[in-house]
């Protein structure tokens, strides 16, 4: 009887945890973590890039672009910490760790540059940041494709 009453409470306690990143138990799981980190970074950079392009072509106001780019930049740190916080299961996975964290970090830097340019309303710097974002995104995509 007690276990029946406990079930809804256990479910409620477990549900919020279902979105957490799983710990890598082997190389396969670690690669999956890497793919998830890259997918999230590609999404963040892609939405920022769309916003930056809209701003450069005069279609988006500064405040709207600022919100979108700041949100994208803000999503990079959790991605870095959740992937970087998982130990590679084997020494052979160290290269993957370095490659993913390097690509995510470069994207984060490009987003920071874009955010600064938007807040200064410096269109030249924003165009440069847009180019950097595009390069960072290409690097992320090719790394993601190499992981299958």
């Amino acid at each position, binding site marked *: 009887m007690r276990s029946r009453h406990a079930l809804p409470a256990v*479910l409620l306690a*477990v*549900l919020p945890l*279902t*979105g957490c990143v799983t710990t890598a138990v082997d190389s396969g799981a670690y690669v999956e973590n890497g793919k*998830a980190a890259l*997918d*999230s970074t*590609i*999404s963040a950079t*892609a*939405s920022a*890039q*769309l*916003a930056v*392009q*809209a701003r450069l072509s*005069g*279609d*988006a*106001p500064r*405040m*709207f672009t*600022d*919100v*979108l780019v*700041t*949100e994208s930049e803000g*999503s990079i740190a959790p991605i870095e910490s959740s992937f970087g916080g998982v130990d590679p299961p084997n020494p052979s996975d160290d290269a993957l760790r370095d490659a993913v964290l390097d690509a995510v970090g470069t994207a984060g830097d490009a987003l920071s540059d874009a955010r600064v340019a938007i807040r200064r309303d410096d269109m030249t710097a924003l165009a440069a940041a847009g180019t950097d974002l595009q390069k960072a995104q290409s690097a992320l995509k090719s790394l993601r494709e190499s992981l299958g």
Partner: protein
Amino acid sequence: MKKAFALMLGVLTAIGGFVDIGDLVTNGLVGARFGMSLAWVVVVGVVGICVFAEMSGRVAAVSGRATFDLIRERLGPRVGVANLVASMLVTFLTFAAEIGGVALALQLATSVNRYLWIPVVGAAVWLVLWRVKFATVENAFGLAGLALIVFAVAVWKLSPDWSALWSDALRPSVPEEESLPVYWYYAIALFGAAMTPYEVFFFSSGGVEERWSAKNLATMRANVFVGFPLGGLLSLAIAAAATIVLMPAKVEVDSLGQIALPVVQATGKIGLAFLLVGFFAATFGAACETSLSIGYSVAQYFGWQWGKFVEPLRAARFHTVLLLATVGAIALLLTTVDPIMLTEYSVVFSAIALPLTYLPILIVANDRTYLGDHANGRVANALGSVYLVVVLAASVAAIPLMLFTKAGQ
């Protein structure tokens, strides 16, 4: 002339008021991940909400009493309390998500952090519920919500491959990168967003607020059978816009700003201005509706005086519930919970609670003691029964799918 105006106003507010934060987020998210392959769920959901909203509106118009009031009387306090708790919890989550949605819309317009806006929005919602007339709230936000038509304009201006969109919608399949359980998880979320329980309770209680009688049945049916499907088209436009712009860019929707990107790309600053008005009106209007639904449900269950058609002093307990719900929603949001994530969970929990909401409505709508000759006919009962099976299946499958897919990851 006056009747035609009332009819048109009702239909327009039904269209503008159909979309809320759940529809905005879920359709944007699903469009970006699954393209138009889940469009059929919106159609199924819209037909379902039409079936039960019509029953609920008919009950209010003929009996002069709101659905929840009759559920407790007809099915007794035990069934009534199960219905009350389930619908209130889901509606409270939705209410908090709507306040968060208003704050997000204001953040997009001003770049002031959403957490600074949340208490201001909560206070504004409470003030509107305290001071502004019911019809003004319903009409003003419903009409302003029509600004979301800009999504349809954006889809047209983006000049998509229409045949590909149609084929995607008519021949649904799971995209290569997605799994079948995740596809069904989002199908349930989309279904929950379209059939949110608060909509029917608000609709029937609103009928009592506006003193509907059997004479208003035709107007009520026009609102439901014309307004709601056109509102459903707006939902499809949101999904289509995301399919055209966000899906190829591999954007995973986790903010309201991302949902706005296709509109900005297609229509520029003017389109964005319309969109922000639409976001604000849709979420603020829904925040008022969800808050009122909580007040209606509690007051009707306990038999208290309720409604905005009486002085607040005469419905003090009803207004106290509204105030407490608002304070609770602000407190929940100030824990820094992400309003978009809250919305995603609220639509899934809506799906879980659907049978507890819709079974009692079907029973009450069949009771000739209350409805006389206006009780359900064969068509309404057949559709209602089919939909009960669908909502039961969605409700049972929701939690296992949530656990299995790690909430749609």
